[in-house]
């Protein structure tokens, strides 16, 4: 969105998202469960990073930590130049938005109204949308390819249509960073291709995108960066080509997956 682009011109050197010495996990009273460690990560506007790893490797935990929903055990997450722990919930909400795996059952709500909820951090106490807010909602619907769904009730949309609406809602927050947790999980193959294409397009328009996914081929074909969780609970930050040729994919997912990954690089 134009807002994001203006921001970047003002601070060309600022990565949207950066981390240092990150360790993520859970702290409960005395017991601390370390889920994952990582070297420095950096994501610039226009880049798509895919977070790959086996089930239970800690993809969602890392995403929650990057989103500010969870405090890291160690290290720091820097969002738009400021450490997360220096930012209020509101300041975080206008810098990044999130699409979760589970679709919340919101009941009867037109898609346009659901996308309007994304204006939450930008509206006053009454939540009334101004002309500007309505404009952003329409832009977001269009950017997510969901303008034709605007007047439909969200409880009557297909899974793919609903995911577009949820992405439009996230865009209505006018974030510079979009975090998605397995956005293709419930989609058919056609919708998966469309969704990955959509995320690539959004990044090309200036957004930074991080998505956790199991879609190895699609991810490698569309991503700029690969964040791969290996068997030793360590995050490897690399590129699609290096992830495949360096043998990382084979190490984590096995030789069959690596073969598949090789072929998908050809689609880049």
């Amino acid at each position, binding site marked *: 969105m134009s807002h994001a682009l203006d921001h970047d011109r003002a601070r060309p050197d600022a990565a949207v998202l950066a981390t240092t010495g990150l360790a993520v996990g859970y702290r409960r009273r005395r017991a601390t469960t370390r889920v994952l460690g990582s070297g420095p990560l950096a994501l610039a506007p226009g880049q798509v990073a895919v977070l790959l790893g086996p089930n239970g490797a800690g993809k969602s935990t890392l995403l929650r930590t990057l989103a500010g929903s969870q405090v890291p055990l160690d290290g720091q997450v820097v969002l738009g130049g400021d450490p997360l722990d220096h930012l209020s919930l509101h300041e975080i909400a206008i810098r990044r938005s999130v699409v979760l795996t589970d679709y919340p059952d919101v009941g009867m709500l037109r898609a346009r109204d659901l996308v309007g909820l994304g204006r*939450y951090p930008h509206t006053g106490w009454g939540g009334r949308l101004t002309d500007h807010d309505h404009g952003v909602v329409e832009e977001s619907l269009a950017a997510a390819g969901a303008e034709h769904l605007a007047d439909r009730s969200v409880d009557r949309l297909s899974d793919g249509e609903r995911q577009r609406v949820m992405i439009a809602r996230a865009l209505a927050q006018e974030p510079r960073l979009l975090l998605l947790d397995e956005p293709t999980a419930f989609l058919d193959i056609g919708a998966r291709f469309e969704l990955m294409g959509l995320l690539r397009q959004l990044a090309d328009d200036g957004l930074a995108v991080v998505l956790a996914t199991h879609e190895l081929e699609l991810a490698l074909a569309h991503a700029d960066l690969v964040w791969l969780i290996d068997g030793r609970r360590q995050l490897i930050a690399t590129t699609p080509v290096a992830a495949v040729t360096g043998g990382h994919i084979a190490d984590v997912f096995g030789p069959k997956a690596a073969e598949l990954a090789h072929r998908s690089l050809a689609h880049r």
Partner: protein
Amino acid sequence: MTATGAAQHRVAALTAMGASLIVTFGLALTLGSVLIPLDQVATVLVGGEADRDAWETIVLDIRLPRAITAALAGAALGVAGLQMQTLFRNPLADPFTLGITSGASLGVALLTLAGAGAAGAFASGLGLGAAVGVTAAAGLGAAAVVSLVLVLAGRVRNTVTVLVVGLMVGFTTGSIVSLLIWFADPERISAFVRWGFGTFRTTTWDELRIFTPVVVVALVATALSAKVLNALLLGERYAETMGVRIRRARVGVVITASALAGTVTAFAGPIGFLGIAVPHLARALLDTNDHRVLVPASVLLGASVALLAEIVAQVPGNDVTLPINAITALIGAPVVVVVLLRASPRSFA
């Protein structure tokens, strides 16, 4: 439906609900054991003299406080139910999910079943002192339970935990009440059971001076929090990513909903059904989950339905009166089922 079509539909539906409130309120003043003509009611209300002296007393001292109590109680329970259903994202939640009724009933049970002097007065007929005692006991009992739930709501990460604890508190107080009943003498039991039927008829003007401001303030607070309630529609995890301070929001919702439901229970006893049914009716009639519309709709619908139930419970033209709690569900439940079945298949939350 197009955008403007939906907006027109909402305005029309809200107007109809407002009209139904005016009509039911008027009927509640007109109908009763004696029928007082509408023009006579109007004369009394503007301070004029009715054709018969008794009518003035009936309208001003009996029917008007009763109608105001019913309207406020219906509005309060409707809105509190809406808040609970949204907070817990559960269509079966109602204002008493947090154990408010259980707490109130424990307070009243302790007073009427185990209490000494006050209970005697209560059993010997509903004297004023006893009624005030019951109101206070119910209010204190409800407040005790809510405080417990509030402490929890500010601490735990998951709202479902709050729900489960509310239910457990309900079971615990329920069993204490059972024990009290088991050992109490029958006369006292009947006084306690009578409280359980609920009534809009015992609230006095003096009590309305407390009841009205509490309910109005809590209703306004809820209306002002429509933005947060809307964000909560997406679930707490999404709401938090949009900047909602979840624990603060949760505590705010619990406080306002408890103030509404607790005050009603203290003054009118446990009034069931309205809290769960009114929000469903409002959603079905307005075809939306937007709280900026649902809160006022629940106020208007809740008040109308409560007044209608009270009119039926009066059995107009007859000395017989029926317990309000039996009427609300008896006429309301089938209506809700029909409305829900006719609405969209997934309108239940």
